[in-house]
């Protein structure tokens, strides 16, 4: 079958699947059966109806007496206007690196995160983790208690234990003391660690991130003799080659890199479209938007990359390599000074060294990328560092171990046993996690919004993190924890941070401090360019040939990272970019293996890695190399983590070959991939073409001219509309979480998702084209289209969904009686129904909700409102000032969060508005145009720029 498909059942035209797709609520019968005890007869149904009527009657009898109380503050903070948001800059620190953010406060409580336009890693956008931080901040399960050997204790007793440790350290110069942290970029924390190591010269500091970038670090050491960071400038790159690359999904600064990369992807806005090649064993986001994606297992990848290296560095022949290698090499060479190659963290250090050599040979240094001194403090190979710590521990050389914001008991196999040998271990962690439970002492760490701190972004730019709220549960800040081991009475954290910046802020410290806080960045702190010279060893590096056989690649869960976000329900229920799985992490297998072992999604297999076995379900991932398995780590937490998924860390730690055997039984997996299908027989939902086609037929996406006569012209002063650029969407999900946070969207849990009851208003549909072995991937954000002739409005018996004069399709919750006719009649399948009181069931404090958005009750339909609350705020401000709403005054939550500016929103009746310009693009098209719904949300068709010399199936 040609055309676009979402899952293999659809491609194979499985009758059960088609039957399911044809029904609006396919799980309804099953759900009813499972929710009722026994099979109720007609009489019981009538009884239930009667009870419902009686209850409805009772509900109508509430008196008009206003309930509730009003509680004003004793003192109101200066400048606070009730109901008006405030904004304070800070940063989201992930694995050490800062992503500048601005937190929105309502009545002094944080409710929403936006990107900080001043911050070079953000430029105003965020990733999904930063968006979800607001829910983590209010998590009632955050660690709140100092614990000693499993018994509640208090801070005083902990300080006594620390004092005892200090006495020991004074005696042996700290020989028995070890500090374990993640990657540290914070200048203040680094200063405290350095001071500790100076005070106790025999003490040691170890770093551990489960998904470290050790290979890149070692590669840089081979190539330049020392650790070095690469800062790509992808807006300057004409040709980009990604080798199993996480350039736009995991590398520090990826939010910025995605912006730069996609700035060269829409041919109507860039004069010279870039070309992206990807060679990878399993799908990555970079591969999904690449013009050429080559699937290559570890062995094939090695051979191919060595051929490319030989051709670029030594003028070697590519005769033995696949036919596409020579045109690729020619393309890279032709783009001298405008090419960039990137390899992912899974690739060996020698390969990273070769890539440094190739990038230098291709002349990109200074134009497509810069080298800077490492942003991380004392960057080191973290797996070696942890191994040294484990060895010291087992040898009994460690008497005191301080672990700060790291969870090695969960993420490092063997660490828990080693920890048993330490007489005094102290864990300072954000939640009561596995490590906190295994240590003799544990204490809550302050959340990044509760304490002063600082951190650096991918290019070295520093941000001072100011507290957003008083600590909800008390706690110890990381810098304070380190300081306590040198000084019985350390300065407050604020003083520690200020001491860091006092020397560089110069004379007028107070105003420099205030402006750094207000801007969210400390100016001129980006790292200087390094002038390191490439060593000849780089070009001679030879990566070891990977052994043959089935290889397993351990990767961080796309939604949970290494497990640090596993307690966040928004992220657990965030459909992973390719599989759209939620709440689980099955083993991802290539379609070829599934065929061979007769496996279907959800079948159990026995996975064996170096003798360690595990039974777990599988999921077929199209586009995965036939000899590659992908295992997401991070789920399956034993404590905290919401009890979802499988813990795969015990299998990690070795360069492993894996075997898979079919086991008995199946496991229910929840994936949204087959939910909300548009008409199942539509084959070109995502319209796309090659650059060549676009140049000859720029209007390829517009099939027919619509008769203008049917247009509706609402009379309002503004006409809201949106344009979504499919050339920009990378499927990263930042918009989905941003929408969830802004619009009070509840999570529903795995069982409800299985019944197709997920509530996210914005989803990103993923389509494939081609064969399961080598598909082309498309992402398409789907949200309410705000049709001018909306099918939903016609069928609502109570007028609960109607049009307003500004072209919005509004949903009036208090009118809705829950017939769900609207959802049935929506061709885009963007409406969501509250089958239960999901909103009321959320485990989050009332103060964490967005007060400007209704929390919907049971039995009510809901859907994207174009962030009506933001529109309303803008029009009230504009009306108060007797002016029109400005062309760029309203930004929807998805638009603000999007790293690549795929969304443009605004008033389409205002010619100055960006959305007008976007809609004038020849690529602009309406989804399901033949339905004549005249949607206000339109898409810009996808254009790809394949190399004409590479014959390929990709259209």
């Amino acid at each position, binding site marked *: 079958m040609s055309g676009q498909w979402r899952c293999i059942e659809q491609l194979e035209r499985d009758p059960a699947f088609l039957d399911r797709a044809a029904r609006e609520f396919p799980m309804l019968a099953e759900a009813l059966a499972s929710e009722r005890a026994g099979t109720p007869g007609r009489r019981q149904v009538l009884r239930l109806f009667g009870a419902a009527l009686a209850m409805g009657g009772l509900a109508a009898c509430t008196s008009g007496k*206003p*309930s509730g109380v009003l509680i004003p*503050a*004793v003192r109101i903070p200066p400048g*606070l206007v009730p109901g008006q948001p405030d904004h304070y800059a800070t940063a989201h620190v992930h694995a050490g690196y800062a992503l500048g953010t601005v937190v929105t406060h309502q009545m002094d409580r944080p409710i929403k995160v936006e990107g900080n336009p001043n911050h070079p890693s953000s430029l105003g956008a965020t990733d999904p983790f930063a968006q979800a931080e607001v829910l983590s901040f209010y998590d009632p399960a955050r660690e709140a208690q100092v614990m000693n050997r499993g018994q509640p204790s208090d801070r005083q007793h902990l300080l006594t234990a620390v004092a005892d440790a200090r006495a020991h350290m004074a005696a042996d110069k700290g020989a028995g003391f070890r500090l374990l942290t993640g990657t540290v970029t914070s200048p203040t924390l680094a200063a405290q660690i350095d001071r500790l190591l100076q005070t106790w010269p025999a003490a040691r500091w170890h770093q551990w991130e489960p998904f470290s970038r050790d290979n890149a670090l070692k590669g840089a050491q081979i190539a330049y003799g020392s650790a070095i960071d690469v800062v790509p400038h992808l807006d300057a790159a004409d040709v980009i080659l990604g080798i199993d690359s996480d350039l736009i999904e995991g590398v520090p600064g990826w939010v910025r890199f995605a912006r730069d990369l996609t700035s060269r992807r829409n041919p109507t806005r860039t004069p010279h479209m870039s070309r992206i090649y990807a060679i990878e064993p399993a799908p990555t986001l970079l591969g999904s938007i690449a013009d050429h994606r080559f699937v290559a297992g570890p062995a094939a990848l090695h051979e191919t990359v060595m051929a490319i290296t030989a051709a670029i560095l030594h003028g070697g022949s590519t005769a033995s390599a696949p036919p596409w290698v020579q045109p690729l090499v020619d393309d890279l060479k032709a783009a001298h000074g405008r090419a960039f190659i990137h390899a992912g963290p899974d690739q060996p250090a020698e390969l990273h060294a070769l890539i440094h050599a190739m990038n230098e040979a291709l002349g990109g240094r200074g134009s497509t990328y810069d080298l800077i001194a490492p942003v991380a403090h004392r960057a080191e190979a973290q797996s070696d560092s942890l191994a040294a710590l484990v060895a010291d521990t087992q040898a009994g050389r460690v008497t005191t171990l301080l672990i700060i914001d790291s969870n090695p008991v969960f993420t490092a196999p063997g660490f828990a046993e080693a920890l048993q040998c330490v007489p005094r271990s102290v864990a300072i962690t954000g939640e009561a996690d596995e490590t906190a439970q295994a240590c003799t002492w544990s204490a809550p760490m302050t959340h990044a919004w509760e304490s002063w701190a600082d951190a650096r972004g991918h290019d070295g730019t520093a941000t001072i993190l100011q507290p957003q709220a008083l600590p909800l549960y008390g706690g110890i800040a990381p810098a304070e924890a380190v300081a306590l081991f040198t000084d019985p009475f350390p300065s407050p954290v604020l003083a520690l941070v200020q001491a860091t910046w006092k020397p560089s802020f110069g004379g007028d410290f107070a105003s420099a401090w205030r402006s750094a806080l207000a801007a969210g960045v400390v100016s001129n702190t980006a790292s200087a360019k390094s002038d390191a010279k490439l060593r000849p060893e780089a070009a001679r590096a030879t990566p070891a040939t990977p052994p043959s056989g089935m290889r397993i690649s351990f990767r961080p869960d796309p939604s949970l990272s290494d497990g640090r976000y596993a307690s966040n329900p928004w992220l657990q229920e965030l459909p992973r970019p390719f599989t759209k799985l939620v709440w689980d992490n099955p083993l991802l297998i290539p379609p070829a293996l599934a065929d061979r072992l007769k496996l279907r999604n959800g079948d159990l297999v026995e996975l064996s890695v170096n003798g360690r076995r595990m039974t777990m379900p599988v999921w077929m991932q199209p586009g995965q190399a036939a000899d590659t398995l992908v295992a997401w780590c991070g789920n399956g937490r034993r404590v905290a983590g919401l009890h979802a998924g499988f813990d795969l860390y015990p299998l990690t730690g070795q360069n492993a070959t894996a075997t898979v055997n079919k086991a008995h039984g199946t496991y229910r997996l929840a994936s949204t991939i087959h939910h909300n299908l548009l008409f199942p027989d539509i084959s070109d939902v995502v319209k796309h073409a090659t650059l060549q086609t676009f140049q000859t037929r720029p209007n390829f996406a517009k099939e027919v001219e619509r008769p203008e006569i049917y247009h509706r012209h609402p009379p309002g002063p503004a006409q809201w509309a949106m344009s979504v650029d499919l050339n920009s969407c990378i499927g990263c999900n930042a918009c989905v979480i941003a929408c969830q946070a802004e619009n009070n969207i509840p999570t529903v849990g795995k069982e409800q998702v299985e019944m197709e009851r997920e509530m996210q208003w914005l989803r990103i549909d993923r389509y494939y084209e081609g064969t399961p072995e080598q598909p082309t991937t498309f992402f398409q954000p789907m949200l309410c289209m705000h049709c001018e002739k909306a099918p939903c409005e016609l069928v609502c018996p109570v007028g609960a969904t109607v049009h307003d004069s500004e072209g919005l399709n509004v949903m009036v919750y208090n009118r809705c009686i829950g017939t769900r006719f609207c959802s049935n009649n929506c061709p885009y399948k963007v409406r969501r129904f509250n089958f239960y009181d999901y909103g009321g069931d959320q485990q989050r404090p009332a103060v964490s909700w967005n007060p400007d958005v209704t929390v919907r009750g049971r039995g009510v339909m809901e859907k994207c409102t174009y962030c009506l609350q933001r529109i309303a705020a803008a029009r009230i401000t504009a009306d108060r000032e007797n002016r029109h709403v400005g062309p760029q005054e309203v930004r929807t939550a998805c638009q603000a969060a999007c790293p690549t500016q795929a969304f443009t929103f605004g008033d389409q009746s205002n010619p100055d508005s960006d959305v007008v310009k976007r809609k004038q693009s020849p690529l602009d098209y309406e989804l399901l145009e033949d339905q004549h719904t005249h949607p206000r949300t339109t898409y810009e068709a996808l254009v790809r720029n394949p190399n004409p010399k590479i014959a390929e199936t990709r259209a």
Partner: protein
Amino acid sequence: MAAIFGPGANLAAKLGLVGAAALTLAGLGWWWGSPRTDYKRNDNWFVDQTVPFSHAHHVGGLGLDCRFCHIQIENAATGSMPPTHVCMTCHSQIWTNAKLLEPVRDSLANNTPLVWNRVTNVPDYVYFNHSIHIAKGVGCSECHGPVDRMDLTYKAKDMEMTFCIDCHVNPGPRLRPADQIYNTEWHRTANTPSPQALMEQYHIPSRDLLNCSVCHR
């Protein structure tokens, strides 16, 4: 065997039918009418408070402006209650030992907020914004009534949806000059600009005020 139905049966049956109909009608009437009573809507029934604050004394008697206590009302969506600190602006100087004001003093001393019982309430799905109504010439007393004469505060208007809609259909007659917004005893006089003139002055309507999305989100 005697007849089952005696001579009075017809009458009894008729009375029974009429009675049933009357009962049904009365029930329906009660069902329809009772939520519309002032009692049910709590209109004109004062609400007990911890501190028996009198608007009649403070506004009517002393002539305090609404904005003295309801700060930021020109910019704020919600008409917030004054912080304790505002009460104590005066009451740290006068009536410093009054028994009535003990909860206020305690609040400041212990840093615990005062708790006021709600007088008016609109449902959660209604997003009323005070600032825009003030900016467009709707005076406080249009919705809150003669606050300056209330010893204990009560709800003066029913605040049902029709109450809002009546004004959104035709705002003109309810508008007043900008300098009279906080005058709770204001009445239209011969010198008042016409409703049309006021509408023009305030640029109303700048949009269709009957759209659901104006109040509901």
